[in-house]
């Protein structure tokens, strides 16, 4: 992945991450008490950590799009979109996580 593709990757990472979080699309799950990784939900072996899986899902999805987008299109994209989209993702995240404070 080179210059313009990095812009696409960073712009989309937050979107895919928050989608993975909201729609429970973790690529894998880690069960720390059992010290086991599983592809699918596995009951009866303790608490689960989805955070690692969300990050990997977002990284793979945004990398795939970044590689697929033609270089000419990526070059035309203003770098402003990176921070605008990320800031919007942060705002949506903060609004959603209000559930802990009400």
């Amino acid at each position, binding site marked *: 992945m080179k210059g313009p593709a990095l812009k696409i990757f960073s712009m989309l990472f*937050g979107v895919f991450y928050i989608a993975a979080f909201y729609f429970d699309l973790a690529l894998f799950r880690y069960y720390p008490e059992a010290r086991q990784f599983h592809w699918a939900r596995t009951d009866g072996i303790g608490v689960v*950590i989805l955070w690692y899986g969300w990050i990997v899902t977002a990284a793979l999805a*945004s990398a795939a799009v970044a590689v697929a987008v033609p270089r000419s299109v990526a070059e035309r994209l203003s770098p402003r979109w990176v921070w605008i989209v990320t800031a919007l993702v942060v705002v949506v995240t903060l609004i959603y996580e209000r*559930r802990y404070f009400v």
Partner: protein
Amino acid sequence: MIVVLLILHGLLAVGLLGAITHQALSVLPLAAAKGPRTFIGRFRGVNAPAYATPIVVLFVVTAIGGALLYPQYRIDVRPALEDMQNAAANGVFEIKEHLIAIGLGLLPAYWQLWQQPPENGATSARRAVTLLLAFFVWWGFIVGHVLNNIRGLLP
């Protein structure tokens, strides 16, 4: 072992916080102070592009440290907070998780923006991305320290 890792994670976070704060203040469009240079003027008068790569490295290494510590939090700390009915503490930590993850994804563009000479639109994008990362790091740092000391902080 977990205590050593926690201290190391904290020390790396201090380095990251200092570096990103220097750089973030350097990109703020503040009026230049007249007369003798002020503390703020000296604080922000750094070679900001030189900070980009160390910040990327520190962010990634600190995040990896946090990821290694996370299972202990999930097994011991989070249930204790739930027992204390402290939903807000779990909430701010969950936001920290999200911001650090989003920050990891932002790093490639951040690094690229600091490697190239600023062009049309790139200066404001560089400033905004740097300020976003600084917000993520400050949130993570404060939340991490408060939760680490929460039993002493709360009655």
